[in-house]
């Protein structure tokens, strides 16, 4: 190497100068980049699909409004619902694991990165197909996110948008199966030697439970979409009850586990954030791991509770399995609260989101027990009560988990801190907005408002609650604007470098650089000693112990490690 020509020296392969090009990003095999592509796409779609929700709310604010036609309204709520589920929350739930799991288990790469990248492209292709429906003559798909036949056969919804939607959902979900498989394989088999199973962080365990559900349940949706696709070509099969009900079974066998796919990773996120900012190990780690796995296993048996009102499913079986889920869910909540009870709490922005997740998701969970009770479900299903219920799980729950994760790991992924003040604005706007939007919907449902109603009449008595709800949605929109401003100013100004470990993290991703090197850990950032699921906390305690007594507490059992070391 000559000092006179520093820019022409021999470089690593791939040369770091070329790592920033578009071609490098689009053909990358780095799990962090694949995950960032997926997460970035999903966040953009979150904004787009959220804007659609605002149109829906605008239409419903006052009775007898016709801002959009019935058909366009149906297309908008279909795009909102299926977009949020298939294209936003599920991809975020899975891609978050793709980013973090290799880091948390000390692996240099994800297993089968090209498969993970194919997953991203399929997801993008599916997204393009679904939104392409807006450019067709009869508009986008308008059959609801669960697309029941016979309505969704070519006889009743003949538009090409409907077929595009079916193909798009198929591709996007196939892509998610690919990504989930690679993450699961990495967590189970590609860990660093010293990371035993019981030394994996709670988040990694939550992705294992999640991705097992993906493997077991998502192929069922592929079958359902294939059946629906068959019905687009030969609509006559859906004149038979058997195929209509078979579709519902296939669909819900996927669609109940997907609810937990959109929930579990955020249980993991909240557990990580709570224990980090409580400055201690997650309380009840073993019980939480077991409860996550049991929860996931049971979640495969509850799908029929979506079919109570069909009169063609076994009420007793599905309500039994559904209600039993409160046991593992309760154990997870125990862990959340017990971690806080013995903590030294720092109220950072990610911590605020994680704390708000706890009571808000609880509302969704408790009303979930109600709708798992057939005699209650008969009355509230297909009403706004259900809409309120799952928006409490998805918007007030998972979305808060997403933002907790976003604020927590944004410094790791970009090397930049977000603004705390704007973060707090975002948080409080979102808390007030979410509850104002979705709490009145419980009342609307009990008052008799069916879901998917393009408009209603003044004498229905739904006006007040709808006005309140729409006002809340404006606050949510403001909160999202604040978030975007926060990200844009942080990235543009680059004033707040994050450092490797801005939060005093507990898990391995905080031991490497921000953003991490292409193979995660290198000579400057070697893997630390790993003796439990919180290796960095162990290190800190050891250093403190050495300072105090010149002694290593880990050496004589002063630390309780979850592993069998």
């Amino acid at each position, binding site marked *: 190497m000559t000092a006179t020509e520093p820019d022409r020296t021999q470089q690593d392969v791939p040369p770091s100068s070329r790592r920033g090009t578009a071609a490098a990003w689009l053909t990358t095999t780095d799990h962090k980049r694949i995950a960032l592509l997926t997460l970035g796409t999903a966040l953009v779609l979150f904004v787009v699909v959220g804007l659609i929700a605002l149109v829906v709310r605008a239409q419903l604010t006052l009775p007898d409004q016709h801002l959009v036609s019935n058909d366009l309204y149906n297309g908008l709520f279909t795009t909102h619902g299926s977009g949020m589920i298939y294209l936003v929350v599920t991809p975020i739930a899975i891609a978050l694991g793709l980013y973090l799991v290799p880091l948390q288990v000390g692996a240099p790469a994800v297993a089968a990165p090209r498969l993970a990248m194919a997953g991203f492209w399929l997801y993008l292709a599916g997204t393009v197909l679904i939104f392409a429906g807006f450019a067709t003559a009869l508009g986008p798909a308008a059959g609801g996110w669960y697309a029941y036949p016979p309505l969704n056969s070519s006889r009743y919804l003949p538009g090409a948008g409907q077929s595009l939607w079916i193909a798009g959902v198929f591709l996007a979900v196939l892509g998610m199966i690919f990504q989930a498989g690679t993450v699961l394989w990495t967590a189970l088999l590609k860990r660093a030697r010293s990371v035993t199973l019981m030394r994996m962080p709670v988040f990694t365990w939550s992705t294992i439970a999640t991705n097992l559900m993906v493997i077991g349940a998502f192929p069922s949706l592929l079958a359902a979409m294939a059946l629906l696709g068959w019905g687009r070509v030969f609509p006559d099969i859906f004149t*038979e009850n058997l195929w209509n009900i078979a579709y519902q079974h296939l669909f819900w066998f996927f669609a109940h586990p997907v609810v937990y796919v959109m929930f579990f990773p955020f249980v993991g996120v909240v557990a990580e954030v709570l224990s980090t900012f409580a400055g201690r190990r997650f309380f009840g780690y073993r019980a939480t791991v077991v409860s996550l796995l049991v929860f996931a296993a049971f979640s495969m048996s509850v799908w029929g509770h979506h079919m109570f009102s069909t009169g063609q499913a076994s009420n007793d079986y599905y309500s039994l399995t559904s209600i039993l889920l409160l046991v593992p869910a309760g154990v997870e909540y125990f862990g959340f609260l017990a971690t806080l009870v013995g903590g030294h*709490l720092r109220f950072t922005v990610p911590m605020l989101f994680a704390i708000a997740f706890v009571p808000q998701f609880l509302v969704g969970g*408790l009303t979930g027990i109600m709708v798992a009770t057939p005699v209650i479900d008969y009355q509230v299903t297909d009403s706004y009560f259900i809409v309120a219920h799952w928006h409490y799980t998805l918007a007030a729950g998972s979305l808060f988990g997403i933002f907790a994760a976003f604020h927590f790991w944004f410094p790791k992924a970009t090397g930049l801190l977000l603004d705390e003040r704007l973060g707090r604005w975002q948080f409080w706007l979102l808390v007030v907005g979410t509850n104002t939007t979705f709490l009145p919907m419980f009342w609307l449902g009990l008052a008799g408002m069916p879901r998917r109603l393009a408009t209603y009449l003044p004498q229905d008595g739904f006006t007040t609650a709808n006005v309140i709800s729409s006002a809340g949605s404006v606050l949510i929109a403001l909160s999202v604007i604040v978030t975007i401003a926060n990200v844009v100013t942080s990235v543009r100004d680059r004033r707040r470098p994050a450092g490797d470990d801005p939060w005093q993290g507990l898990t391995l991703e905080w031991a490497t650089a921000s953003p991490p090197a292409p193979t995660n850990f290198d000579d400057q950032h070697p893997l630390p000693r790993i003796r439990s699921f919180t290796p960095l906390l162990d290190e800190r305690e050891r250093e403190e112990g050495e300072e105090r007594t010149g002694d290593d507490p880990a050496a004589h059992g002063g630390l309780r490690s979850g592993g069998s070391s």
Partner: protein
Amino acid sequence: MSFLPIFRDIFWLEVAIAAGVFLVIAVLLAVTLYRRRAGAGRPASSRADNLPLEIGYAVGLLGVAIFLVVVTANANHRQEQVQQAARAAPDVARIDVTGFQWCWEFAHRDGPASETGTCAEDPATRPTLVVPAGRPVELRLTSRDVVHALWIPDLALKSDVYPDHTNVLATTFTEPGTWLGRCSEFCGTHHPTMEFWVRAVPEQEYQQYLASGGASV
């Protein structure tokens, strides 16, 4: 009227339990957040586990779950039995309810009466389901095209309506009155206006209605 009382009992029972649980957790959370804030100066605990407590707690939860399962299954069976009894009653009035895009048709088996409508924007175009008050009524629900659902919110009556399949709702309208019925399963463009009226009338009036072949009473 078997549906509404059972719904109310179980719903308010579960609301009470849910409210209790929510309150306990919310208070615990609030107190913890205040007591354990960094400014309070309490160091973080290094305890990572308390297995006996966790197992005991899980067993307690299992007890709650079993209680809820039993209550739920009981209520469900009670409702089924009431429906069975209503269907088996000798004086049951049978009505064929057909949903289609986008309205309803009601055909009475005890007489030549049949009624349908167009369910347009004007509420006057909605059909009326006339039922006798005070004796069991069996609604036999089927669809001509896509999946619909018959819902009478004020009476907590709901069932999906399928093509190529007949679902049955059996109940007794104890008092005369008029209620609004809706389609609650999304069924396409005019789903929002797919509504009907339910009128429970005294026996004599019902017989007149049947005899007149569905002329309004």
